[in-house]
């Protein structure tokens, strides 16, 4: 019965009804309501019913608007960009690690070079977490070794070997003269040298100035940009250590 063409559903098929709310920096009154109706019409809501307007202080008004949109959606034209790994909750991550590794996943994290900004690595690793998600320490099946700031690359490699790290997470905030790119290449080279081919831990870097597509070029397995949450990193790690990525296969 449903064809490829759809529009929003209020209470009758094809009515196109939507609701929206917003604030305009306009004092409450008829002029403000007319402005809200005009905005809604330009958004494709016509006729726009301004069902609620309320002053917020002297200079702002809050609106709730209902009305039909004339836009159509052709489901055949909808394209979904698939993440190469599923986003898992903490319980699923823990269960997956237990099932696939049969031991805790070991993550060693650090800020390398002269970078003293641990905001990024702490947001991902500390239990306090980021954006409402708990950090990797929270996951029962992940063992986190956070080395903190200004860690020398040889020390990082040594620690990763000592702890038999499955993954190494490095955060780079300071980017003067492309220090973050330089440091990352050096780190990748150091790990390649210290481990037999195909046996090195996953190398994951994160920071606000990285290009997320440059992983191969920098010699690492994955780059995470600004706004990455601990859950995304955990989901990726589970996916990658169980053979989803190009690195080591963990013996069963």
């Amino acid at each position, binding site marked *: 019965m449903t064809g490829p063409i759809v529009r929003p559903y209020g209470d009758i098929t094809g009515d196109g009804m939507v609701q929206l*709310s*917003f*604030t305009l920096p306009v004092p409450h009154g008829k002029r403000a309501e007319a402005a809200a109706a005009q905005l809604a019409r330009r958004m494709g809501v016509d006729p726009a019913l301004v069902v609620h307007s*309320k002053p*917020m*202080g002297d200079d*702002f008004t*809050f609106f709730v608007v209902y009305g039909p949109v004339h836009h159509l959606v052709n489901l055949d034209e909808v394209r979904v960009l698939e993440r190469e790994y599923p986003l898992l909750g903490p319980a699923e991550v823990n269960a997956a690690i237990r099932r696939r590794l049969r031991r805790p996943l070991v993550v060693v994290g650090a800020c390398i070079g002269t970078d003293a*900004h*641990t*905001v990024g690595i*702490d*947001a991902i690793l*500390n*239990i*306090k977490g980021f*954006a*409402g998600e*708990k950090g990797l*320490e*929270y996951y*029962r099946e992940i063992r986190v070794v*956070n080395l*903190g700031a200004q860690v020398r690359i040889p020390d990082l490699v040594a620690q990763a070997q000592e702890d038999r790290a499955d993954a190494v997470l490095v955060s780079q905030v300071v980017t003067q003269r492309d220090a973050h790119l330089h440091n990352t290449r050096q780190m990748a080279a150091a790990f390649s040298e210290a481990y037999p081919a195909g046996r090195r831990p996953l190398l994951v870097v994160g920071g606000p100035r990285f290009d997320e597509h440059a992983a191969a070029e920098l010699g690492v397995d994955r780059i995470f940009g600004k706004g990455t949450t601990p859950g995304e990193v955990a989901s990726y790690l589970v996916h990658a250590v169980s053979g989803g990525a190009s690195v080591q296969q963990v013996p069963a």
Partner: protein
Amino acid sequence: MATARTAPHVQLDPVTVRRARRLARKVTAPVVAMARTHTTVSVERATLRLAGLTGADPQRVPWVNHLVDAVRDSVGLEHGIALPVWDALARDEAPDLLTCAQKAAAGGIGFRIPEGRDAARAARGARAAVSRGIRRIDAARRERDRLIARWGDQPRRPWIYLIVATGDIYEDIPQAQAAAREGADVIAVIRSTGQSLLDYVPEGPTREGYAGTYATQENFRLMRAALDDVSRELRRYIRLTNYASGLCMPEIATLAGMQRLDMMLNDSMYGILFRDINPIRTFVDQRFSRQIHARAGIIINTGEDNYLTTDDAVEAAHTVTVSQLVNEAFAKEAGLADWQLGLGHAFEINPDLPDSFRLELAHALLARTLFPNAPLKWMPPTKHMTGDVFRGYLLDGFFNLAGVLTGQGILLVGMMTEAVVTPWLSDRDLALQNVRYVLGACAGLAEDFHPPADGFIANRARQVLGEAVELLERIVEHPDRVPLLAAIADGTFGLMRRPADGGKGLDGVLRRAGGYLNPAIDLLEEGATR
């Protein structure tokens, strides 16, 4: 204080309640003994701040850091900062404290640990200087009392607590003033992410924070002055809150006391568990900061909400009670009065659970009954806010209802866009409408709310208290000299294992030598002004 109505409560066994308190004192006593035999770089820097040392070098390294580091490098800090510094001043190595710090930073001062009459002379000088800072804190407290008397205080409970966090103090100020005009009684300025791990306090007004604004002395001063302006306009004293936590807890408490902040977040174990700060560093810093808060008339807010966001709010309910009892015991030892204990708890039970609201009421009433004279801090749902803002708005309404019904003292306003965006102007307005509706419709409902002594709520409250007592007993039984440290090390709280010899800031902890002197601690413990 609040209107003279019967405070809501559940019936608890007084013997169990006394037992819980006795166990909490037993758990905390060895930690206090440890705090009395150690000091930290931040305690010593706070002492210098009380003596009036402010400012930073052109690289923005504070002079208190320079001076403490210089003394530590030459004669060690085991005797405290006071003796070597005021001995150097008495020997005319520098004409004043600032010059002393500047010269010391360049290696230009020969410090020593004075003895005999020289030590007595240095101690007198240090006490005179540090007591000026203590008197400044006393004066700020008197000023608060005077302004509350003049402008009036919010008589209704709970107080409405709103957060601003733009990262820029000059943006925070109009937002905070607007929030006060919309009905907030308490304004909290969230700190920049990661400030808790800085081992220095930034200087001056700041405009670039990350998800919050840096806590600095100048930011404190600017915001307090702005809230004084709006308090005068509204004829209602608006309180200001910040964070005494992290590696600089003692210094931030000191700055807050001098700049007349009114509340400070100050938990006994938060930094250890959730920020991986060394346990000993935290407990030593915490005791000093609480002594300052006690003196300054500051209300502390503890962080029990964090246990529930990391663990299940039903299964881990008793860990909140244990933490509240431990926080109370530490606070009392440091000199804080009941009215200064904003003990925390939160509305974090999964709303899909049957009877979830009854369980929330049971937990909230347990806290209310256990701490009848503390202004409990009631924290809104965060964990089960999913992005469905409509459901979230309903959940916040139930949170507000539970707050009124169980007589909470400080209500942190919940935002329906929690976990979606930082609050918009309209989110804050809708949230305050929600609070005002519930407070208006149900203000006196607590009078009518007497859960039966053998009902679901009372039984659940007693069960949680029983589990809390069991956990305290397990901690006490640890065969360690400081059982609480052992319990923290083996993951008893918040699922985190934090060994006493690990974590950040350990290198800033020192065991006190026999002749250790800290005039700030002496003045605080004696209640003296000179």
